[in-house]
């Protein structure tokens, strides 16, 4: 009898583990939908949105020459409003020429090092954030559309595993908040669905703009887990999984969050 009970317990534990849903939440709601009304208003205000300062900076950098090639972004890509439209909806993606996954920051740095022949921009530097925000801004309102092609499949699966794996001293997986409990109250915050379509975005906690990876690291910190480094495989995999999970959600860069 005891044995049967133990088996039942084992079975229900494994069933529980499997029943953690990994599909996208229904309906998909942007990160701003979980913010107070004043934050939503600030995000929608093109002048007052403080992250627009970095978008303006990115617009200047777009036209500035860099590196040995003495080329600017505009020299190859022309007018960003047309050439960069919908580009952010397709990242992260597998880049066959370098045989690895690149997020938008990675793609920009690929151009900076390979095409402009300059030193790579540091992660979380104002320059890289500004260029990323400026490029993403050209896809404002367009739906995320990241595809899982052959090269991206293992990265996506890696990200999915991280998303559903318990971690940290609080022993929580991403799913426990952002899948099972979104829309509920956690202290003064409403738990979001955990989408990245508003990043790079401005967080008042940071007093500046930050990348999606910085936001992901903040979640690692939140569950008292060791934070992976910027540009690490783990964060890239999570970015990839999130991008697929939020397929169809409109880009709202730069987002404004508490």
């Amino acid at each position, binding site marked *: 009898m005891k044995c049967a009970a133990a088996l039942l317990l084992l079975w229900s534990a494994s069933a529980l583990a499997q029943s953690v849903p990994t599909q996208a939440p229904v309906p998909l709601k942007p990160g701003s939908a979980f913010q107070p009304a004043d934050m939503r208003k600030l995000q929608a205000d093109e*002048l007052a949105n*403080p992250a627009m*300062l*970095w978008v303006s*900076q990115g617009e200047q950098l777009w036209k500035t020459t860099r590196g040995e090639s003495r080329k600017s972004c505009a020299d190859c890509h022309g007018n960003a409003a047309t050439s960069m439209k919908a580009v952010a909806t397709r990242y992260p993606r597998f880049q066959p020429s370098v045989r690895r996954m690149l997020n938008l920051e990675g793609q920009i740095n690929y151009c900076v090092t390979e095409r402009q022949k300059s030193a790579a921009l540091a992660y979380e530097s104002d320059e890289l954030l500004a260029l990323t925000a400026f490029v993403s801004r050209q896809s404002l309102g367009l739906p995320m559309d990241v595809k899982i092609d052959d090269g991206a499949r293992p990265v996506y699966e890696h990200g999915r595993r991280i998303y559903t794996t318990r971690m940290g001293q609080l022993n929580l997986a991403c799913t426990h908040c952002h899948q099972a409990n979104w829309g509920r109250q956690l202290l003064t915050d409403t738990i979001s669905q955990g989408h990245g379509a508003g990043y790079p975005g401005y967080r008042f906690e940071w*007093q*500046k703009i930050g990348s999606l990876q910085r936001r992901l690291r903040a979640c690692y910190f939140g569950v008292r887990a060791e934070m992976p480094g910027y540009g690490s495989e783990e964060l890239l995999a999570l970015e990839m999984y999130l991008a697929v999970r939020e397929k169809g959600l409109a880009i709202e860069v730069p987002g404004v969050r508490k």
Partner: protein
Amino acid sequence: MALARISIQPKAKVGEAVPVRLVIQHAMETGFRVEPDGSVVKKNLIKWITCKYAGRDVWRAETGSGISANPYFEFFIRADKSGDIEVNWEDDASEKGAVSAKLEVA
């Protein structure tokens, strides 16, 4: 790089109250923040901001540690003649910034 964004309607009638909106990119370091290695981040705040309209001082702010990073300001000027709206500021590191816009008054 001192960066700012200013927004003002391009045209106004004589006597109209015209809103000026301004955002300045600045960390507004209070001098109380500590880096992970224990070192103190040096205080660096915008000290003053002024606005000139057609050569006359029309608005001035003295800003301190109570003002957020990347501060936003909104104020009104009374339109009387066409001219430049020039905003200038200076911070504790003696770095100066400027941004301007044109107002056409009919």
